[in-house]
C-alpha cells in the first residue's frame, strides 16, 4: 500500500510530546545541569586580536594559584589524527590566533571564580598581524592573507589567496537566454553573518581515567560525531570515549561540531579529575557558529510572459578562518525552484579573520535565495507581472532538470504555490506603507548513517533506542511511527536517546534527516519484531509462517485451520516470549538513502515607518511540502521557527566588527534576535506530497523554512517603501537611507 493510500491510525495526530512536562517543570537536564563529585571548572583564555602571532605563553603564575589543578595550551594536545588538524587548531590556537575569541589557553580549577582569576594570570605575548574581516576586502589581491597555500587549482585568477575554493553549476547558455529576455536585471546583494542563536550555550563535562578511557556528557546535535571529532583531535580510539548527549536547548546546525569538548578532555586528562565547562554568551558569539557573510552578483532575464530566460549568480561567501564548502550550498539551490533552460551559478569560498563558520539550517541557501528571489521579484515589478503567476509559470516539477544537475522526482512546489495563491493572506488588502513579499525556497535533505533498536518489554510495552538528540520532537514522531507499524497505542512506546556505547554510529540531528532516516530505521526495526513474532508463533502453532500475519496489533492465523488459533496481541506475545525462545528485539542499521527534496513558499506583509525606516512584520504565512506530517504540531513548529530565524536574519541580526577586527556586539542586547512580541503569529499550511523513499512518505522539514524568509521580507520591505533592498539586515538606518536616496 502506498503512503498516499494508506489509512493511518497514529500518524498525523497531534499527540502529547514526551519531553513537554520535563521541560516546563525544569526536570529536563541540559548540558550545564550535569555535575560529578569532585568536579573541576574549566575556563578558556581567548585572543583579544583578530590576527596575531603568539610569541610566548607564560602560565606559571596561573599554575601557582591555589585551587588551579591544570593549565593547558596547544602544547598539551597530541598530533591529531589526519583530517582533524583544522578542528584542533580552531579549538586551541597554535602559533597564530586567527580571529577575535580564538582559544589560546585553558585552566581547570576547583571553582569558577578561581578559574576566572587564573585566566587573568596567563601572560601571552602577541605580534599583531594585519587582519581582514570583510568579504569584499578579503578578495582583493592586496588583502592580508589568512592562510597561504590553500587555494585550490580551480579558483579563477585575480583574487587574493583568501579565495580558496571555486565551484560552478548550471546548464544551457545564459548569454543566449539573456538575449531572449525582454528585461534583464543585474544587482549586487549583501548579507551579514548571523549566529544560530540557540538559547543554551555550549556545555560539557568529561572525565578521563589513567588508562585514557573517558566519558563525556555534552549538549550537542550529534554525540557520535562529537566522539569522533574528540577522538580525532585527542588522537584516541573512538571506543575509548563514551559520550552521552544532554537535552538540548537549540542547535540549528551550530552544535554539530566541537569547540570546547576536546579542551575539556585535555583538562580532564591533565588534572585527573572530572572537568565541566559552560560557555558564556559572549564566548558563544565570539568563538562558535556563525554563518557566512556574503556578497552576491545576480543577473536574471525575463520575457514579457513571465518566463525566466536566463539566470546567473556569482556568490562570494565569507567562511571564517578555515576553508569551507558552504558556498556550494548557495550556488546549487539558488535557482532550484525553477525550470530553467539557461542557468549558471558560481561559488567562491573566502576565508577571513572571523570565527570558523558552522552549519546553520540549510547552510548557504538563505542568502542565495534572497538574491535570486529579490531579482525575480524586481523583474516582476519592472514588467508589471504578478509574482505568484511568474513563479507558477517557471516552477520546477517532477521531471524538471534542476539548476544544479539532477532531475527532480515528484515534489510539492506547485502544490505549495497553489496553496499560497488560494490562501486568504495572498488576497488580503494592504494598508498604507505596507508591502507584500513572496519567495520560494528549496533544500536537498538527506538520510545518512543510522542505527535503531526496538525492544519488546516483558509487559508488552516497547522501548525504542536511537542515537539522535531530540531537537524538533523526534522522540514523539519515532514513537508514533513504531506504534503505527506495530498497531499499538502511542502511549505503549517510549523512545530514548542513548549514548555512544549503546548503539552503532549515527550522523547528527542535521540535514533534516531524523524523522526520515531514524523513522525509516525504526519502522524496519519494528518490522523485524513482527517477523520474529510470526516465526515464533508459527512454530508454536505448528503452521507455516506465511499463514501468520500481523494485523491491528495482533498476530492472526489465516491458514486453512482458521478459527483454531486465537489472535495474540503484543502483550500476550511478551508474556510467553521467554517460552518462545527469549526476549524479542528488532534492530536496523543502514545508510538511509531516499530522502525527498523539500520546497516551501512564504508570504510576508511588512510595514515600514517612513519617519524612521523601522520595519514591522504584520502577517506571515509559511506553506511547505512535508511529504507526510507525522506529528503536525512539530512540523508547524519547524516551519514557524525557521521563519522567525529568517526574519531575524533579514531585519535585525548581524555581526558587527570594529576597525580592530574584534566583534562589537557580544550579547543578546546588541545582537538582537526577534522575540515573540516582535512578530505576528506565523501561519502555516502543510502540503503533503509523499516521498516515495519512505514507507509513510516523510520528507525532512527542518531546514527549508529558513530559506525563503530573507527574500520574502526583503521583497515585502522593498514594495512597502518603494526602494529595492539589497543589503541585509534591513536595519532602520539602512532602510531610511535607501528611502532618502533619489
Amino acid at each position: 500500500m502506498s503512503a498516499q493510500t494508506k489509512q493511518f491510525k497514529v500518524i498525523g495526530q497531534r499527540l502529547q510530546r514526551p519531553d513537554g512536562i520535563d521541560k516546563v517543570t525544569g526536570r529536563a537536564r541540559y548540558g550545564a545541569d550535569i555535575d560529578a563529585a569532585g568536579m573541576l571548572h574549566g575556563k578558556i583564555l581567548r585572543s583579544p586580536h583578530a590576527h596575531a602571532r603568539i610569541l610566548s605563553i607564560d602560565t606559571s603564575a596561573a599554575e601557582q594559584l591555589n585551587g588551579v589543578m591544570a593549565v593547558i595550551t596547544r602544547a598539551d594536545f597530541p598530533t591529531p589524527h589526519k583530517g582533524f588538524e583544522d578542528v584542533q587548531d580552531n579549538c586551541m590556537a597554535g602559533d597564530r590566533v586567527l580571529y577575535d575569541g580564538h582559544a589560546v589557553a585553558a585552566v581547570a580549577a576547583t571553582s569558577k571564580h578561581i578559574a576566572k582569576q587564573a585566566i587573568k594570570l596567563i601572560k601571552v605575548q602577541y605580534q599583531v598581524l594585519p587582519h581582514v574581516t570583510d568579504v569584499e576586502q578579503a578578495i582583493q589581491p592586496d588583502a592580508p592573507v589568512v592562510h597561504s597555500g590553500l587555494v585550490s587549482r580551480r579558483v579563477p585568477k585575480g583574487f587574493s589567496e583568501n579565495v580558496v575554493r571555486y565551484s560552478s553549476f548550471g546548464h544551457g547558455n545564459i548569454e543566449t537566454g539573456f538575449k531572449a529576455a525582454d528585461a534583464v536585471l543585474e544587482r549586487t546583494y549583501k548579507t551579514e553573518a548571523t549566529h544560530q542563536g540557540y538559547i543554551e550555550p555550549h556545555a560539557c563535562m568529561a572525565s578521563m581515567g589513567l588508562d585514557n578511557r573517558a566519558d563525556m556528557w555534552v549538549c550537542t546535535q550529534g554525540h557520535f560525531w562529537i566522539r569522533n571529532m574528540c577522538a580525532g583531535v585527542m588522537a584516541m580510539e573512538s571506543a575509548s570515549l563514551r559520550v552521552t548527549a544532554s537535552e538540548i536547548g537549540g542547535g540549528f546546525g551550530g552544535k554539530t561540531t566541537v569547540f570546547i569538548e576536546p579542551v575539556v578532555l585535555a583538562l580532564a586528562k591533565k588534572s585527573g579529575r572530572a572537568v565541566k565547562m559552560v560557555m558564556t554568551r559572549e564566548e558563544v558569539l565570539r568563538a562558535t557558529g556563525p554563518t557566512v557573510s556574503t556578497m552576491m552578483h545576480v543577473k536574471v532575464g525575463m520575457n514579457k510572459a513571465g518566463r525566466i530566460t536566463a539566470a546567473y549568480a556569482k556568490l562570494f561567501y565569507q567562511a571564517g578562518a578555515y576553508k569551507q564548502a558552504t558556498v556550494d550550498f548557495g550556488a546549487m539551490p539558488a535557482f532550484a525552484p525553477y525550470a530553467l533552460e539557461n542557468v549558471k551559478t558560481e561559488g567562491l569560498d573566502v576565508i577571513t579573520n572571523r570565527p570558523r563558520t558552522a552549519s546553520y539550517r540549510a547552510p548557504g541557501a538563505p542568502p542565495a535565495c534572497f538574491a535570486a528571489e529579490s531579482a525575480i521579484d524586481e523583474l516582476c515589478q519592472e514588467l508589471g507581472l504578478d509574482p505568484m503567476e511568474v513563479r507558477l509559470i517557471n516552477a520546477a516539477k517532477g521531471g524538471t532538470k534542476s539548476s544544479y544537475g539532477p532531475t527532480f522526482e515528484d515534489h510539492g512546489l506547485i502544490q505549495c504555490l497553489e496553496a499560497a495563491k488560494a490562501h486568504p493572506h495572498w488576497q488580503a488588502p494592504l494598508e498604507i506603507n505596507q508591502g507584500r513579499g513572496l519567495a520560494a525556497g528549496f533544500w536537498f535533505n538527506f538520510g545518512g548513517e543510522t542505527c535503531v533498536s526496538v525492544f519488546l518489554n516483558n509487559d508488552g510495552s516497547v522501548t525504542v533506542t536511537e542515537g539522535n538528540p531530540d531537537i524538533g520532537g523526534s522522540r514523539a514522531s519515532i514513537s508514533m511511527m513504531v506504534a503505527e507499524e506495530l498497531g499499538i497505542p502511542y502511549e505503549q512506546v517510549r523512545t530514548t536517546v542513548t549514548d555512544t556505547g549503546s548503539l552503532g554510529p549515527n550522523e547528527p540531528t542535521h540535514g533534516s534527516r531524523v524523522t526520515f532516516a531514524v523513522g525509516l530505521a525504526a519502522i524496519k526495526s519494528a518490522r523485524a519484531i513482527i517477523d520474529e513474532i510470526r516465526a515464533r508463533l508459527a512454530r508454536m502453532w505448528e503452521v507455516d509462517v506465511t499463514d501468520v500475519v500481523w494485523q491491528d496489533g495482533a498476530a492472526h492465523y489465516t491458514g486453512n485451520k482458521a478459527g483454531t488459533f486465537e489472535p495474540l496481541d503484543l502483550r500476550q506475545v511478551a508474556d510467553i516470549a521467554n517460552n518462545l525462545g527469549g526476549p524479542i528485539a528488532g534492530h536496523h542499521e543502514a545508510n538511509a538513502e531516499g530522502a525527498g527534496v523539500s520546497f516551501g513558499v512564504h508570504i510576508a506583509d511588512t510595514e515600514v515607518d517612513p519617519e524612521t525606516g523601522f520595519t514591522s512584520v504584520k502577517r506571515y504565512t509559511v506553506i511547505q511540502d512535508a511529504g507526510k506530517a507525522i506529528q503536525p504540531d512539530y512540523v508547524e513548529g519547524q516551519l514557524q521557527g525557521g521563519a522567525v530565524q529568517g526574519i531575524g536574519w533579514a531585519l535585525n541580526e548581524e555581526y558587527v566588527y570594529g576597525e580592530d577586527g574584534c566583534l562589537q556586539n557580544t550579547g543578546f542586547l546588541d545582537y538582537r534576535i526577534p522575540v515573540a512580541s516582535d512578530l505576528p503569529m506565523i501561519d502555516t499550511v502543510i502540503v503533503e506530497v509523499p516521498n516515495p523513499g519512505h514507507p509513510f512518505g516523510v520528507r525532512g522539514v527542518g531546514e527549508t523554512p529558513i530559506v525563503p524568509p530573507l527574500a520574502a521580507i526583503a521583497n515585502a520591505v522593498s514594495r512597502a517603501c518603494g526602494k529595492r533592498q539589497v543589503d541585509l539586515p534591513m536595519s532602520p538606518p539602512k532602510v531610511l537611507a535607501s528611502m532618502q536616496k533619489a
Partner: protein
Amino acid sequence: MAKIQIFGSLRDLFSGHDVVELDVSNLRQLLIKLPQLYPECAPEIAEGVSVSIDGKIINDAWFTPIRPDSEVVVLPRIVGG
C-alpha cells in the same frame, strides 16, 4: 553504459567532458572507475562527494544500483544544519 553527468567547474577534472560514459552497475564501481580514468578528480572523490542517482542524493551507499539508463550526477558532498 551509464552516462555520468559532469557539471560546471567539475568538468575541468574530467578533461572538459560534460558526460562521461562508464560501464558500472553501482556507486562503488563508479567511485573506483572515475579516478582511474580521470586522475584529476581523485582528490575530489577522496574528499567525499554526493552522487545523485535518478534524482536521489546518495552520500555513501556503495551498492546503490546504477542502471544503464540511470541519470547520474556527481555533486559536492551535501551537508546539513
